[in-house]
């Protein structure tokens, strides 16, 4: 099966499933619900955005969810992560994945939620075969590229997503490789569609001067930050305002190389992203986690137009923007 990855739709839903999922079955249909219940999802990096996403797909009734994040919980994690009880005697000394897993299990007893120990940057291809969906958050560019390439090398279809929130800005990247789905036309008719996605490497290699004028400034700003952290060997979010001069210098280098006017990446925006560090604004996490949940359900059910291939949100203007990179004309 193209795109869905969740196997066929044979086997009926149990009475318990029909009762619990009553409302949403009316939205996406029995077939989509069956596919959902056979899908296996891996999430690497537990923070405000990913826990919102996890909450949404666990409630929706995904087959299984595996969490990977060995970091020990600290007070900083409480800011946007409502799955961690604000009580040190509960979270103290335990990994983020462990504490979040414990909370998520209660959300829906019909979903298998478990912990995968390990380092995402060392994940091997065979391990990925267990999953239909892989979501990465707060990972280095190197890890993102590495896992994205590994997903693409597998013979089974694995959808790849990254999601990040900095301050009150958010970014989602989507790679569905080849994805065929049913598109609803106005008036109720349906049509089969097929999309071909670029890999993350292919997308970010497109020269900036080839991109449309209206391309979101967040796209460029996130690339500058990513590039800086990669070359300095920093973990994502570890760059701070004290690095502003070095980061602005990197902005100049990249803009020169890519023939982009520096003013397209405002200094105030770079400052905001640096000041945020690892901090996330909870309502923005809810929006991003909601969008990603919806995207993953679309990809599993093969129903509805998916995002291709970047999504941006910024509280400053309250807008959600989809960027298709490379733009269709550049192909």
């Amino acid at each position, binding site marked *: 099966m193209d795109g869905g990855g969740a196997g066929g739709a044979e086997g009926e839903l149990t009475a318990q499933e029909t009762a619990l999922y009553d409302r949403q079955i009316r939205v996406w249909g029995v077939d989509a619900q069956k596919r959902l219940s056979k899908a296996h999802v891996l999430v690497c990096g537990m923070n405000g955005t990913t826990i919102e996403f996890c909450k949404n797909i666990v409630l929706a009734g995904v087959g299984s969810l595996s969490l990977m994040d060995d970091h020990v919980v600290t007070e900083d994690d409480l800011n946007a992560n409502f799955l961690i009880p604000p009580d040190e005697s509960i979270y103290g000394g335990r990994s983020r994945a462990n504490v979040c897993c414990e909370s998520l299990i209660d959300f829906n007893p019909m979903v298998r939620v478990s912990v995968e120990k390990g380092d995402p940057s060392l994940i091997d291809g065979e391990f990925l075969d267990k999953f239909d969906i892989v979501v990465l958050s707060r990972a280095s560019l190197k890890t993102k590229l590495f896992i994205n390439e590994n997903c693409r090398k597998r013979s089974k279809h694995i959808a790849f997503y990254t999601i990040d929130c900095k301050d009150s800005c958010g970014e989602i990247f989507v790679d569905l490789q080849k994805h065929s789905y049913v598109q609803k036309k106005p008036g109720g008719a349906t049509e089969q569609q097929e999309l071909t996605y670029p890999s993350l490497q292919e997308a970010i290699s497109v020269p900036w001067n080839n991109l449309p004028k209206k391309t979101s400034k967040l796209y460029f700003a996130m690339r500058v930050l990513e590039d800086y952290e990669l070359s300095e060997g920093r973990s994502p979010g570890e760059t701070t305002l004290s690095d502003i001069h070095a980061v602005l210098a990197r902005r100049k280098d990249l803009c020169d190389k890519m023939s982009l006017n520096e003013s397209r990446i405002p200094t105030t925006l770079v400052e905001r992203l640096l000041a945020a560090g690892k901090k996330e604004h909870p309502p923005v996490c*809810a929006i991003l986690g909601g969008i990603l949940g919806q995207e993953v359900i679309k990809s599993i059910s093969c129903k509805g137009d998916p995002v291709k291939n970047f999504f941006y949100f910024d509280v400053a203007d309250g807008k959600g923007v989809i960027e298709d990179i490379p733009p269709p004309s550049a192909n």
Partner: protein
Amino acid sequence: PKDLKPLSSRYDAQISVFGSKLQKKLRDANVFVVGSGALGCEFLKNLALMGVSCSHRGKITITDDDVIEKSNLSRQFLFRDWNIGQPKSTVAATAASAINSCLHIDALQNRACLETEHVFHDAFWEGLDVVINALDNVNARMYMDMRCLYFQKPLLESGTLGTKCNTQVVIPHLTENYGASRDPPEKQAPMCTVHSFPHNIDHCLTWARSEFEGLLEKTPKEVNSFLSNPAQYVASMKKAGDAQARELLDRVFECLEKEYCETFNDCITWARLKFEGYFSNRVKQLTFTFPEDAATSMGATFWSAPKRFPRPLEFSAADSSHIHFIMSASILRAVSFGISIPDWAKDTDNLTDAVSKVAVPEFKPKSRVKVETDEKTKNISSASVDDAAVIEDLLSKLEACAKKLPPRFQMKPIQFEKDDDTNFHMDLISGHANMRARNYGIPVVDKLKAKIIAGRIIPAIATSTAMAHGHRTCVP
């Protein structure tokens, strides 16, 4: 600027966005959250994470008169299996406090409406900083909008429908209010189509649901309001003196006199006669007034598409759907009269036996019966020659029949509840609609489809709700 400097608190992310002055305002805020469903849960979570109402001065008041049901759990994520049956507001408030223990929150179980203005009184309203609607219907939204306008309070409004959602911020003197713009009206079939000329199952279900509400909820409520204070009731009916008052009285009188039930057998008789009335007599009358070959004043065939010519059903105890209609109708009738339901009521053999003993009078169609055929007519009310005189007469008959009732007699109105599979509500409505569909040669539906249409269920899912709430709480 200094205001945006982090304070090493858990709220640093938003201090860097909105500043520490606003954070202090959020902490001291007096917030009224109306509704504790899917939107309410998302809201409380975000408010708790943002540190809203976390000082001794701030307080969140959340109110919802509903209890938790199984089908809520797929999106109302502060609730768990073991909370089923508990009040939504209390459970949600406890869960929100677990996210942020500094949160000051009060949970109430009152619907916000005219009748609860002694709870949500002027002093309560005047102390509020912001009102957040987490409602599921337009009427309640209109009411809250009106109160916010009156007390000049900002209102955050949002809603979801399937995968779509919307949000609106209402600030006094700055934006238009919620009621100033209208959502597109719900599609409704013309009254005459529903009453006499259905051509699809939706029309049959709409009719079945409105009959259910009329017979089992509205009339019993009306009966109770008459019996609890006859003098006041009589006075108000005399004062109204119109066709609507006359019709209400007609129904109350019918319920207490002709259709009064004392035993379960009375309920079976009632159900059997209703069957005859709905699926046979009604159709015979309609086709007598408009025979199959009737023509319109323009000379066209009256029964032309989309109108469908109906045929009466003949009751047969051997037809299981007939017996099931009798079963659910008589059981619900018994509930509304407070009559205990015998075990044999759910046994079709016993029921068949009992129903065959009911004497069914022969029906003779009347001439000069007016049937509404104008699609523009919104409600069907036949104006009578002298409503006031008829009302006088009905009231005196009613007072006489009240004397025969047991002391302090009250009926038990039934509120339609679609999600309980054991309460016979959907059985009666889908049975009624399907029987009517048979009258008109319309394909019948199963109970699930019937439930969607009759329950006017608006599909709701977690992701839209999360997004709507995220958007809403972003607005300072």
